[in-house]
């Protein structure tokens, strides 16, 4: 069965979680100084990875905390979960 491990609550059903898209994208410090192209880069452009991908998840049906996960987008396997503010762990796959 497919399970996601919340770093605070442990393994739970995927229906308890909400996906928040790609992780580690920082909001620009001074958006008012950006060109339209630079703003579009921040808002729309994502890496569209096939393979190990760092993304945000929220345990919306449990502790309601956001955290990050490394998921293989080709197999849906979750390789690691880590708390917001922690560094992205590296696996032997990337």
């Amino acid at each position, binding site marked *: 069965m497919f399970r996601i491990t919340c770093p*605070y*609550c*442990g393994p*739970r*059903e995927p*229906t*308890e979680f909400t996906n928040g898209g790609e992780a580690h994208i920082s909001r620009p410090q001074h958006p008012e100084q950006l060109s339209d192209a630079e703003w579009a880069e921040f808002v729309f452009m994502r890496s569209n990875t096939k393979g190990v991908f760092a993304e945000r998840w929220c345990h919306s*049906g*449990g*502790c*309601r*905390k956001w955290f990050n996960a490394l998921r293989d987008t080709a197999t849906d396997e979750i390789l690691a979960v880590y708390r917001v503010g922690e560094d992205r762990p590296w696996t032997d796959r990337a």
Partner: protein
Amino acid sequence: MSAPVERTPLGHRDPIVVGDEARLAEHAPAGLLILRCEPEAAAEPFRLATGVDLPRAVGTTGIGDDLEALWLGPDEWVLITAAEPTRLRERLRAGLAEQHYQLVDVSDAYAGIEIGGRHARNLLAKLVTIDLHPRAFAAGTAVATMLAKSSIWLWLTAEDPVFRLFVRRSHADHVWCLLSDAGREWGLPPAIPIGRVPLQVP
């Protein structure tokens, strides 16, 4: 003008008792407070104010005299009291005055349901996905999870077993009917929701 009428969220539902097989009743504690704070700093002032150790891990609870604290998240708890919560609120405000915290009275926002009887675990297992086996969910365990599509807090208060479940008030009748329907193999009656829309049990 007519006088205000005090109603509990499931006041229209009579308790259901099927021998010692399964039973369902509204359980409406007088006070529910949500506390959010940094536990590193606030645990000790909280203990001094209430006599209760703030639970610090998933599934855990802190039990005191007329106060139960359930862990909801790393910085969030629900505090349950059978007494009117004003005095507890004041005590916490005084005790946590030096802390960065948030305390919200949600007493009227939630409904409580007590589920008992020897089939209570099996009945709930039809509707929640967490492991309710005694080795994984012993008396004193409480979690925030989902029941069907509703967010709930589920707490096993006694090994009998006696579960207490809290859900948003507007979901109360829906969840009551799901529970009653899930218990039909042990003699619980089919329940017709307030809106008379037939149930789709997942």
